[in-house]
């Protein structure tokens, strides 16, 4: 029995090892200074990089976090602290449904409500799509983390004459903070790799831009374009981009891990 479990665990880890190994084998050789600092060059030429996509990913995901984190964490706090009633049940149910919604459907929603009325693709529309994906994830993880805070701490604060809202913010949220931050980082890492909802919102852009009202390139879109293109050079860059994206997600996850090990803010 133990042997079986060990074999199964190794199989699970093997997938990660194979993906990472493959990416490094095929992508690492293409990563150089130019890769990070230059924008793509016209097809057929060699050289060029994905600076626009790296910056684009940071912007699209960053704006998504700016929208999604306050709403998601706020909803989670509400669910944990006041969500006992009918409304809480409803919010929780909707969050679960939204959590299971295919990301491409969320992309269509963003297209319908932002791209179509404004009649142009934009990074902002992509961010909104990613934010919608983040919100239910953050709401549920925040709720779980806040629920881990022992009831006795709430009582202690209330007995000291803390108003309820202050108990929630100063004592409960702070105690759960490292868990909430970890949840946010995991949520951000998850949407950072999303491609489908960006296809018809952020669209992609071969040029460097910082304007969120314009179409913008992200690493995931860049990979999609390069990997499906006809040129060997593009395939090479797709592998390298995939490696960078994977590294980015890994760094965010490791940061989340590191934060939970911090001394203050641990949950007892």
């Amino acid at each position, binding site marked *: 029995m133990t042997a079986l479990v060990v074999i199964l665990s190794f199989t699970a880890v093997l997938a990660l090892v194979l993906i990472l190994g493959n990416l490094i084998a095929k992508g690492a050789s293409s990563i150089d200074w130019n890769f990070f600092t230059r924008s793509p060059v016209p097809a057929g030429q060699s050289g060029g990089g994905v600076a626009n996509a790296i910056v684009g990913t940071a912007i699209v995901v960053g704006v998504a976090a700016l929208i999604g984190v306050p709403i998601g964490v706020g909803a989670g706090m509400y669910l944990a602290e006041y969500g*006992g009633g009918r409304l809480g049940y409803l919010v929780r149910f909707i969050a679960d449904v939204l959590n299971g919604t295919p990301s491409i459907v969320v992309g269509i929603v963003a297209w319908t409500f932002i791209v179509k009325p404004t009649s142009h693709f934009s990074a902002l529309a992509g961010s909104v799509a990613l934010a919608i994906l983040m919100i239910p994830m953050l709401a549920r993880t925040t709720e779980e983390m806040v629920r881990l805070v022992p009831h006795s*701490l709430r009582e202690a604060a209330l*007995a*000291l*004459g803390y108003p309820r809202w202050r108990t929630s913010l100063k004592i409960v949220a*702070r105690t759960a903070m490292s868990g909430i931050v970890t949840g946010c980082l995991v949520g951000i890492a998850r949407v950072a790799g999303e491609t489908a909802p960006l296809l018809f919102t952020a669209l992609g852009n071969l040029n460097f831009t910082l304007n969120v009202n314009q179409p913008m390139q992200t690493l995931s879109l860049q990979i999609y374009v390069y990997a499906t293109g006809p040129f060997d050079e593009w395939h090479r860059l797709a592998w390298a981009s995939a490696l960078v994206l994977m590294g980015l997600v890994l760094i965010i996850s490791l940061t989340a891990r590191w934060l939970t090990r911090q001394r203050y803010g*641990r949950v*007892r």
Partner: protein
Amino acid sequence: MVASANTRLRLETSHLTAMFGQHRAVRDVSLLFPAHTVTAIIGPSGCGKSTLLRCLNRMHELTPGASVDGEVLLDNKNIYDPDVNPIGLRRRIGMVFQRPTPFPTMSIYDNVAAGLKVNGRRPRPELDDAVARALHQAALWEEVKDRLETSALDLSGGQQQRLCIARAVAPQPEILLRDEPTASLDPAGTQRIEELCHALKRLYTIVIVTHNMQQAARVSDYTAFMYLGSLIEVGRTDELFTKPKVEQTEAYITGRFG
């Protein structure tokens, strides 16, 4: 015994009934807690003694489905009157719980200062004084004075409980409620907390809930015995334990049930 005939009345319950939904956890209890004395409430598990205690600072009503009937008079003012703000009330009545509950994100200093800060900003020197005074009162100062900025979680269980006492007394409440404050402590820790009881009654009116009769006998001036939600007998501790008037009280203190 400190209690004297002219002790000013501080806290009193009058026909107090506390409910959880339809269940009456406390039944028609009228009880006087004289100022600057220690009153112990004893009784078997589930007799309503903790619920009674939680009615005294309106913590009981925070439980979903809980309700209260009757009066709790603090200086002749019913604390359940609509014009009484429970938050302000709880700042006048400190409470210490069964298990130590230091705030895990805060340092020792911030834990003690928590109840002061919630009352509004104060200048740092004033806070420093109040924190030091509270830690002295809780007999913890000597052990923590050099590490006030370290996490409260690094303290031992007994120290954490004394920290909670310091936190409760820092805002200088008039009354101190203690719900089995030594239930999770070892004998040495228990002894220190009990010694504190004697020292603190000069400053506060203390109500202590315990199911440890020896503890009640050691620390209290008055003892109230509760059974199945009702107050069975109340009297001076020495009299109640030596010459109980009610059969049930005698049965309980001699260990025949409970």
